[in-house]
């Protein structure tokens, strides 16, 4: 819990230096909280096959009579429970430490956007997991690479809808489900808006999930077969 709080504090102090309104500190706290789930998707789900490969247990998963999606779903649920506890702690600690404004008038809408965001993120994570089936350090470094750039593009610590953000950046950010999730949660939890303001976010997140889940299934199957053909499925120290 301490590491996210340290990061959040830095950005909140930066907003304080430029005398931004207090709700911007709230934006940072929501972003930092959701970052915990993104980190979980990357390292505890996508990269899970990398760990299994390196420790020599991937073979056991491969011979088990279950689908790869089921394995990843199980890992996702386990990771989700742990991450939720951590994320809630970060959220509450952030609010208490920095005394930032929170205004949730429609908790059901907030929860709906949150779960839709989680669904889309974990579907994306399943797709990334296919890369780890075949690649070693390349996939590892790619996952590493998906931290700061995703934080920048998804507007983890600022609203991407600001006039200051160039159109190209906004366009790229709309390709990431996290952007819609963060924007929706901020509108509902900080700005006190309701479902009428966030229905485009709900629609976008639903579409992301519906597209990403079948894609993840295809990608896992394709990479597994490719890995078997090239004999790289259980190759360690790549």
């Amino acid at each position: 819990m301490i590491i996210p709080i340290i990061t959040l504090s830095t950005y909140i102090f930066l907003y304080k230096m430029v005398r931004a309104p207090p709700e911007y500190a709230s934006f940072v706290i929501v972003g930092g909280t959701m970052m915990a789930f993104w980190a979980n998707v990357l390292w505890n789900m996508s990269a899970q096959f990398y760990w299994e490969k390196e420790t020599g247990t991937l073979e056991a998963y491969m011979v088990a009579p279950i689908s790869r999606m089921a394995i990843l779903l199980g890992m996702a649920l386990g990771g989700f429970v742990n991450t939720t506890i951590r994320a809630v702690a970060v959220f509450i600690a952030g609010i208490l430490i920095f005394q930032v404004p929170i205004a949730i008038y429609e908790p059901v809408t907030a929860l709906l956007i949150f779960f839709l965001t989680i669904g889309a993120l974990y579907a994306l994570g399943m797709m990334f997991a296919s890369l780890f089936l075949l690649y070693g350090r390349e996939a590892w470094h790619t996952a590493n690479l998906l931290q700061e750039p995703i934080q920048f593009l998804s507007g983890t610590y600022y609203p991407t809808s600001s006039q200051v953000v160039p159109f190209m950046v906004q366009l790229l950010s709309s390709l990431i489900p996290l952007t819609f999730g963060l924007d929706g949660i901020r509108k509902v939890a900080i700005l006190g808006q309701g479902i009428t303001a966030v229905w485009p976010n709900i629609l976008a997140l639903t579409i992301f999930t519906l597209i990403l889940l079948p894609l993840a299934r295809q990608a896992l199957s394709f990479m597994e077969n490719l890995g078997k053909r090239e004999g790289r499925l259980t190759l360690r120290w790549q």
Partner: protein
Amino acid sequence: MAVGTILRTVKQAVWLGWKVETNWADPIVFAIYYLVRPVAGLLIVGFIFLIGSFVSGIIDSNLFTFLFIGNSFFIYVIQIMMTMTMLIHEDRAHYEVLKHIYLAPGSLSWYIVGRALNGVMNASVSLLLTLGLGIAIFQYGLGIQVPINWLGIDWGLLGLTLLLGIVCFMGMGFILCGINIMTSKVQFMLTEYVSGILYLFGGVVFLPEILPTWGQQISNALPVTYFLKTVRSSFLHQANFDVQLNLLYLVVTMIGTVLLGLAVFKVAMFKARRDGLIDKKEEY
């Protein structure tokens, strides 16, 4: 130990570090990798600054320059910390070569210095690319004036500050190496804690005066604070009493950090040898 042996050890370690870090990709992919993360990091703080300034109605280019230089040069801290924190874990648990390096004629400490120098090389490349792209994006793309006279940089002061800073960060790295050799699987957490604390309290992207009093006291005790203050002075031509004082603080904190780092590492190695931790196996 003979100087020739030390130099050979350092040279081989730099070469090995370069190979380990680069041989997973072709040079262009590797360059992009080393460019994307620091530039994205700069873009995050740059956009926080811009959006925050936009809503408050005041865009202070001096504050932006403060942030721009601080965030760019913090790459040295991150790279050195990351390299020195990960290498014990990688060499001992992942590749299982630490015991061979320990038994080789060269010293393990000089090998670590060599690997850290490789981190310095990578950081220098990242720094140059980040500065160039940062100026291109913020000054020419978004119209933020960055009041740096690139032809008037005090290279002597900058070179001296970099040298002192790098030695100091290596001292911190030896503390982390010592902790890693006595523990297992804390390498990722350790890097994030240390770099996160230094980023928060080191006056990297915001003025330390914004921090509460206790935070300012922590900031005043950290060598990173003086490192970045002196780097900014060399860029912005502030050759006055404060620069000399900051340089003096940097030297004092560097000596303290290096002595502490070597002491921690020596004690850790003694315990590791006694407890059989040098060839300890982990999950691999």
